[in-house]
């Protein structure tokens, strides 16, 4: 217990040191909680968009500008719109009386809490082998493109085939019988 209390001043110093990160982290955690607890599934989707947008901010903090752009385009742009489409096509939004959670809430909460405690313990007890900050290449995107077209060209092609398969699979699944 005293050990944890000792950490508090250090934590406050950390917050003062990295205000942007802590602001982003706060919004991410708060809106992620909204995503899993709110009753209206449409509001959940809107909070999911907020969460994904803030994760893009985290990527920018980590000097992954291309990934931040990908996150905004694919997640905030495409996946969220897809989710909202699916919600519009399936659930009746007006009826807020529909219970969105099942009766496993207590057990699920315990499992999630156990994972949370385990991961946080593992995270804060580990001494990370940080060799200073890795000096990422100045022009990140150019290096990424070169890597994708040279060292990682095989996974790149496999992923393109996967996308094609997903596209065809979705069309086949969602098509009405007999049309």
């Amino acid at each position, binding site marked *: 217990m005293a050990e944890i209390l000792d950490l508090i001043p250090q934590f406050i110093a950390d917050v003062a040191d990295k205000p942007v990160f802590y602001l982003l982290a706060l919004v991410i955690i708060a809106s992620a909680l909204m995503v899993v607890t709110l009753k209206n599934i449409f509001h959940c989707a809107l909070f999911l968009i907020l*969460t994904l947008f803030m994760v893009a901010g985290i990527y920018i903090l980590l000097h992954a500008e291309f990934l931040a752009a990908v996150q905004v385009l694919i997640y905030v742009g495409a996946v969220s719109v897809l989710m909202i489409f699916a919600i519009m096509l399936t659930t009746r939004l007006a009826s807020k009386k529909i219970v969105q959670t099942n009766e496993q809430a207590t057990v*699920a909460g315990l499992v999630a809490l156990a994972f949370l405690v385990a991961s946080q313990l593992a995270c804060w007890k580990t001494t990370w082998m940080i060799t200073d900050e890795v000096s990422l290449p100045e022009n990140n995107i150019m290096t990424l493109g070169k890597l994708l077209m040279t060292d990682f060209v095989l996974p790149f092609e496999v992923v393109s085939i996967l996308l094609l398969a997903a596209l065809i699979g979705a069309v086949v699944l969602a098509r009405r019988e007999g049309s």
Partner: protein
Amino acid sequence: MGHYVALAGVLFAIGIFGVLTRRNAIGILMSLELMFNAANINFVAFNKYILTSSGTLTGQIFAIFIVVVAAAEAVVGLAIVLLIYRNWKGIDVDRINVMKW
């Protein structure tokens, strides 16, 4: 470094809670996206702070592939959800148990 991994852990735990408690199939898919993002934050953080022998951007490449696979998963998942809705008139996963026995 530790801060980013801690944030990813919290986000993943929230995702686990969502997957386990949601009754709506779309809600489960949304919680899955949260967990994907938690993994991605870890990849990018490790990429920035820990030098590997195989180049400086491997973690980001991995994260890009995860984003693509997550998008494919969301597309197929939502197509299945639409199909289930058409056949069962609802996407309550408690009721969809024909493959259970």
